[in-house]
């Protein structure tokens, strides 16, 4: 029984330490998302990665606003048609450049897969009350590889 009690204590301490570490972590999983894990709204209201194919479905249905986090010059060269430009560093200097409708679905992307910028910005937006912020898991790179449509120019 002594061993069993110790195993339980290890589990409880791991849970508490994990939650504490995560909350203190700059890039930790927001508490809101952890709490949503127990909610039926979880699937509809979250910050999470999506595949390039799912993003393309959103693109075809026009059910999401695409946001390009790359520098402005790269955005001008080519981007997902209709995407808004919101370079990562500009956003943190001036958050008002991000669209202000918090109820829309936003899909963030940068060039590389699993980019840190999209995760940090997504976390920030959720904290600010945006209800659904997704990011393309494999980045714009895979969008290009799959030869999905792109456009050039300064955009909207």
């Amino acid at each position, binding site marked *: 029984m002594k*061993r069993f009690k110790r195993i339980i204590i290890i589990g409880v301490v791991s849970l508490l330490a994990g939650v504490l570490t995560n909350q203190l972590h700059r890039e930790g999983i927001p508490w809101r998302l952890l709490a949503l*894990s127990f909610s039926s709204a979880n699937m509809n209201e979250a910050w999470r990665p999506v595949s390039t194919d799912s993003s393309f479905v959103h693109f075809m249905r026009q059910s999401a606003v695409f946001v390009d986090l790359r520098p402005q010059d790269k955005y001008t060269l080519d981007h997902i048609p209709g995407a808004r430009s919101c370079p990562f560093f500009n956003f943190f200097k001036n958050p008002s450049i991000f669209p202000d409708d918090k109820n829309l679905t936003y899909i963030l992307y940068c060039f590389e897969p699993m980019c840190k910028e999209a995760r940090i910005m997504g976390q920030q937006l959720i904290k600010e009350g945006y209800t659904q912020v997704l990011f393309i898991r494999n980045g714009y790179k895979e969008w290009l590889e799959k030869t999905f449509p792109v456009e050039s120019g300064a955009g909207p």
Partner: protein
Amino acid sequence: MMLNGKNWKHWLLLLLRIGFGLMLIAASIDKIRHPMPFAEVVENYRVLGEGLSRWTAVIVPCMELLVGILLLIGVWSDAAITVNVLLMFTFLILVLQAYIRGLDIDCGCFFVEGESKIGILKIIENTLFLLGSIVLYRLYSKQRGNDGIIS
């Protein structure tokens, strides 16, 4: 110095305990540093779903770290060794099911990003870890004079 049977087992026990301790600590660091990407890695195994994957990404790395430290310093070894077996068993099952289902995903065993894909080598690696953890459990139980899972 000649090693008799008892000495040999004693040193093997010590080696396995320290080896698993260091391995678990090393495996936990990158996961603790990158909780969100690790949650994605867990979700990619398609076993737990989105919500539970996030909680797993929060709890499991800390459990690895805690068990690793306990194994290393030799405190609460009975519980730490048992949890170690359970962790290794779970990891093997996860890797095995991913391979059988043909999932082309990163293992996420030691590093969150850029690690090798799930394949035969990962299954062999995890099987060896499980066998090692069972040997450690058996040696420890015999040394303590009991053989039960939970004494």
